[in-house]
């Protein structure tokens, strides 16, 4: 498993309480710059970062890794984005 720079993006419980289909989070990722992260709800809740689509807890893999990026759901249902070191 790779080592990532993890950024806390949002809380899954709060997102689901809002009853939205999708929500765009604008975050200034320290060391990277201002980024937009799209959170969208389907069968799984997923995030899109830099054109990489990451499904949270996909196939019971937590963190779920794809194309040098990862998404992680912690015990408090906070969703973290992992970017390459």
């Amino acid at each position, binding site marked *: *498993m*790779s*080592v*990532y*720079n*993890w*950024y*806390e*993006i*949002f809380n899954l419980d709060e997102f689901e309480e*809002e*009853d*939205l*289909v*999708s*929500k*765009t*989070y*604008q*975050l*200034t*990722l*320290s*060391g*990277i*710059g*201002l*980024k*937009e992260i799209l959170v969208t709800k389907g069968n799984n809740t997923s995030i899109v970062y830099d054109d990489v689509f990451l499904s949270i807890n996909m196939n019971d893999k937590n*963190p779920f890794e794809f194309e040098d990026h990862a998404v*992680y759901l*912690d015990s408090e249902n906070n969703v*973290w984005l992992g*970017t390459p*070191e």
Partner: protein
Amino acid sequence: MLNGVAPIIIFDFLATASLDLGVTFSKIPVLNTIPTIPLPSIPIYLDEGLTGLYVESVTKNVDIETNVEKNLTDANPVIIQKGINSLVTVNLIANQDSIGMIMLSLLCDKIFSRLLDGKYSITYLNKSVTLFGGLLHSFSTVQNSENDLFHISLQLAKGRVNSTIQTAVSRIAQPFNGVIPGVAS
């Protein structure tokens, strides 16, 4: 005017449903979750002959803030646009004894007392300028000493939109380096 007799402004108010529906009705999900009930709409024709109001001019203004952010890692800048407002300004002339002027003034006062709950909406139809579900932005009247005419300025803002898509407020996120967050590498 939208193929009608005259330009029209329609005020809609909602009342909070405080009816005791009883045990039986309260178990029906749809009935139980309706928080407000609509009151009959109040139309005012903006016509000299009908209400004594004359539309002098109408302007529509859309104001958007555009920020261009350059990332450290990207060649292409990120462009973020935020809507400031979308306003329709209606300038009217009315006689002192105009019934339309009195109604308009009273309804705007009524809206002022209901700003917090926001249970109202305004629809405006005049030729190509249409606004559905708008909000009152400002209302002012000016009277000259030279004549008995009122000059009314009414500004309406585009109303709230119930969307399933939302953009969160920007914030700064600090990184945590490791295999998973909370466990250092």
